[in-house]
């Protein structure tokens, strides 16, 4: 990721923490929602694509890092995972771990 993106995210996280953007982190919430088109509403999938709801946080983060690095075989997740910063992946892991 470029330096610019990192800076923008830090700036925005500041907003979220100061309460202007509300308690929930809307950036994470929005990204997580976009995963649902493949992984199913609420992270519960029908068919071959795995569910994400309730995945262990550590396992989630490791999976995404391994997808990025190419050390975990993937049909499509390398292309997806590379689009997100490490901070976003951490936040997404916490979000999905919290879905029942």
């Amino acid at each position: 990721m470029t330096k610019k993106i990192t800076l923008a995210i830090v700036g925005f996280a500041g907003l979220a923490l100061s309460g202007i953007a509300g308690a929930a982190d809307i950036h994470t919430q929005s990204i997580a929602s976009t995963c649902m088109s493949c992984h199913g509403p609420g992270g519960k999938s029908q068919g071959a694509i795995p569910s994400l709801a309730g995945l262990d946080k550590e396992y989630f983060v490791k999976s995404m890092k391994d997808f990025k690095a190419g050390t975990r075989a993937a049909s499509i997740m390398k292309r997806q995972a590379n689009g997100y910063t490490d901070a976003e992946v951490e936040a997404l892991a916490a979000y999905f771990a919290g879905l029942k």
Partner: protein
Amino acid sequence: MTLNRRDFLKVSGAGAAAALTGCATTTSSARPHVVVVGAGFGGATCAKYLRQWGPNIDVTLIEPNDKFVSCPMSNWVLGGLRTMDDITHGYDNLPRHGIKMVKDMVVAIDADKRFVKTRSGASIAYDRLVLAPGIEILTGSVKGFNEAETTGKVVHAWKAGPQTALLRKQLEAMPDGGTFVMSVPAAPYRCPPGPYERACMVANYFKQAKPKSKIILLDGNPDVVSKKPLFTDAWNTLYAGMIDYRPNNAPLAVDGSKMTVTTEFDDVRGDVLNVVPRQRAGELCAMAGARNDSAGNWCTVNLATFESTTVPNVHIIGDSVLSNLPKSGHMATNHAKVCAAAIVELLAGRQPDPIPVIANTCYSATSSTTSGYVANVFRYEAGKGYVSAPEGGATPKGDALNFTYNESWAKNIWAEVLS
């Protein structure tokens, strides 16, 4: 359904009184009212997430059709892999989110006074309006198309529904050794890989059921617009000798009695003709004055909120938007989510996420057992719009694993939009 005054009050709640007296509600009202028009991939998703993320917001969703018929997987119906039933879904689950569904069609928009008018005569006021009409097909741009379409001789089947079923019937009735002629509109159009997937699905059917048949693909573009390696691999290996691909062959005219498509070069005769004319943003956007690009064809929006660049409080999502993002159902649901999140913040007087991140994926089947995809993550940057992240791209060859993921994707996105 015709809305009488009492129904209308039930439907639009607080906003109704304002509409009847001709003055719009303001953001200071206790429960802001968002009207979403069009319950396709974009609109239905937006309505659902507005309610989920903004429980204090009243949401009305206006759609004339009883059922959602999915364009994604409609090529599979043409290939005989799916039925019309498989791609047809009800709206029954949406009211559970607290969405007010109105079965009607919007016929006028007053963006100054902030209300929409419907075919049945109702006026519905809004604080913010979301327009998600999909595309208008420029049937007049191909001479003779309107006539051929009216008589049922030639269809586009670029909006899934009765035309999909009719085209499948025509293909079934075609004799072995016949010719299927299909045209691809000049970009931008709905679903860049869609025409080439359709060619694969029809070829797959011919290979099984009528192997002496031919396909002529008349492309209005200089080359295959999307996933070229994937599709050309399928055409050369799975369907060798069956598909005659002709770039730079925009259809100028069609004749449903002679069964010909005329291009700059030729009159091409076929037994089944499938002409897909050029497209623009749905007429609904023009009603709001939001079909505002230089040619008056597409809608320019602030891509972090999807609010029109020229019409305040009106947001446009899905295929109608002008951008570098592909016009897909997957993308329309992501427009919808960014837009819903932004509206929730704006109505609360807060700043929307300034750096939304969205992704596109289009799976396409190349046969009854193989699929490939194109996938990209797009990160919004102020002043630049959506910038494609590294590692995006397409599969060079269809395979069985992606076919199972393609099937799973369809089930999940339908559930995501409609349940």
